[in-house]
């Protein structure tokens, strides 16, 4: 898993059916000091996270599909938690 900071969201009307009614967040991946790494990922939200939140990301398909309870689907990056504190 990765720690990231939500910096925005993506709006998309035409998408693969899996993404219908799903929230997409722009997540900046953080290093172990809490700084930016320059890497970002677009992730599907499951915890009502929003811009400014520090979050836990899964960037792996099988784990993500397990969260959504599906056997197949083009999902890999999922926000699975809001971080209260870390260090």
């Amino acid at each position, binding site marked *: 898993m990765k720690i990231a900071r939500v910096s925005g969201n993506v709006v998309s009307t035409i998408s693969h059916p899996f993404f219908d009614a799903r929230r*997409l967040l722009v997540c900046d991946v953080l290093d172990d000091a809490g700084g930016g790494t320059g890497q970002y990922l677009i992730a599907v939200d499951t915890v009502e996270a929003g811009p400014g939140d520090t979050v836990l990301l899964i960037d792996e398909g099988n784990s993500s599909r397990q969260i959504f309870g599906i056997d197949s689907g083009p999902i890999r990056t999922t926000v699975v938690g809001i971080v209260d504190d870390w260090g």
Partner: protein
Amino acid sequence: MQLGRVRGTVVATEKSPGLDGVRFLVVQPLDKQQQPVGMSIVAADAVNMAGPGELVYFVSAREAAEALEEPFVPVDEAIVGIVDAVTLEGRS
């Protein structure tokens, strides 16, 4: 998933079985400010509506094939949505 800009199309008649009818597009990966990063890639179009000039998001690796009708095919990236807007903190 990452943002990308569709740059062009790829036509291939001879393809691996299972890829018949799949559209391939040349996509330039972008950073979150929509500036180009790295080399262009060839992505399958899983929404069947993306075209040159459009801002899209794509999924990489195993999950790319999951986006297609035949989920066991050799593709590295697949376009899974067309972006209407990207809103970043403090600006859009």
